[in-house]
């Protein structure tokens, strides 16, 4: 039997900003082929967790390894796709130019890059020649998601990916994520929309006030609490 490959491993991680602890003693991991939903209220530490995985924040305590390396290594950014919650691509570029810019860094072959950029522009229904500054919020959001998929990343990190997207597109994105998993990808997704996490992730980690209060499969949570929403409310003590 093939042994599981760890995509990331966090052990006893603590993140603090000045006088406030954002994350405390967090131990979390994800195996290849998995899909983990990170749930929590505002300020629960979801974004800090994601940013520490990407090397944007150095934790005060604990260790993190991602794709067998320390966070922040440039060679890992070829293998990771990241869509931040509040990202904004350069407004003076067109959508196509921006994807070409990111693609040029991630994909060596010019032919493959052109093909991938065109495919993503079509799939996300983005106007290739329109300046990003003239894009609507929803289109900017789609562009950020599109750039995260460039270069066939092994690991996708999506921070609140559904913000600003219309319901029909959310259905399509769900399908896209399923296809990505079937193709051997792994993803970590943070969201406020509990029902959506239930539909798109196999496992859920619930963070509350910087601490991991639960980590289980969606199936188990649904069995025990009826739904992920109920589980979330129980675990954070709001029911």
């Amino acid at each position, binding site marked *: 039997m093939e042994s599981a490959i760890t995509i990331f491993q966090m052990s006893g991680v603590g993140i603090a900003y000045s006088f406030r602890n954002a994350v405390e003693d967090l131990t979390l991991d994800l195996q290849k082929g998995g899909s983990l939903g990170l749930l929590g209220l505002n*300020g629960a530490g979801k974004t800090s967790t994601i940013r520490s995985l990407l090397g944007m924040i150095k934790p005060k305590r604990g260790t993190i390894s991602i794709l067998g390396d320390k966070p922040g290594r440039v060679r890992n950014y070829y293998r990771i796709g*990241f869509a*931040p919650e*509040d990202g904004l691509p350069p407004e003076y570029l067109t959508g196509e130019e921006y994807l070409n810019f990111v693609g040029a860094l991630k994909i060596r072959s010019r032919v493959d890059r052109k093909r991938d950029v065109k495919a993503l522009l079509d799939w996300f229904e983005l106007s290739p020649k329109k300046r990003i500054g003239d894009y609507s919020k929803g289109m900017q959001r789609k562009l950020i998601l599109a*750039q995260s998929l460039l270069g066939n990343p092994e690991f996708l990190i999506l921070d609140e990916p559904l913000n600003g997207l219309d319901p029909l597109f959310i259905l399509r994105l769900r399908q896209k994520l399923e296809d990505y998993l079937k193709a051997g990808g792994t993803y970590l997704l943070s969201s406020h929309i509990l029902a959506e996490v239930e539909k798109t992730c196999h496992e859920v980690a619930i963070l509350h006030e910087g601490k991991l209060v639960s980590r289980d499969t969606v199936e188990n949570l649904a069995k025990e609490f009826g739904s992920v929403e109920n589980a979330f409310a129980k675990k954070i003590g709001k029911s």
Partner: protein
Amino acid sequence: MWVLLVQTFRHIFRTRLVFLLIALTFLVHWFGLHILSSMKVQLPGQMSLGPLLKQSDYLFISLFLQLFTGTFLAAVFGIWTVPYLHQGQRAQLTFTLPLAKWKYPLGYALTMLAMLLLLHAVMLATFGWTFGWKDLTGSRVSWGTVGLCLVVQTIAFEVVMFAFALGSLLFGQVTTFFMGVASILCLQVSGIVFRISFLPWQHTEGSGPPSLYYWIYSKLPPVGELAFDLWSQFKKPSGGDPNLGLWVVWLLILGGLFYYRMTRPPKSRLADG
């Protein structure tokens, strides 16, 4: 690296910085040289002594005027263009690009170099157009001296650009603009004050050990010395230290700090949960 250069040039063209730079440089040099070359000593009703300045003086004036256009370029490029990808909501997307962080300062320095070469080309072209190409290529000017002055200016503007870029990343654009202008003004005034002996705490040659003020000033980027350095090269070629070494040291320091800043995104923008 090539990808970053293309991206930065695209930014410069889209924001029309290049066109603004060419127009400003041409206008400053054209008007400056025309006004000065038309000045004559005229004794009322008697005689005219013709132009006051020699051709080499005009070339120095061109280099002097270049201090304004170069500083303008360093400020605009440093405050607005360089930090653009690394500020606010763009910072996270840029930080996670598979591009080594040392390539950012190098890429911006090369882009600035390309624009400074353009600036120098416009300056020389305006000079040639004003006085004739024969004068420009004639042997009356030491091209070695002009070359050295252009090298000093180029490195100085790179230093100023990095200082503005770092300031913009740390304190924001508006604050950096005013702080930068004030700093340049202070350094230039200090440069003049240290050369004109009228203040008790200043240092002049042969007046004993240097004061603390002068010691600090002499370690800072020699912004206040730049015009004097250029002039001393013109007056006495191959003589006088144009502070090239100090400029290079500051270029390495500020380039290094910029690289360090690239490896660490600001926590204040991340502390939201």
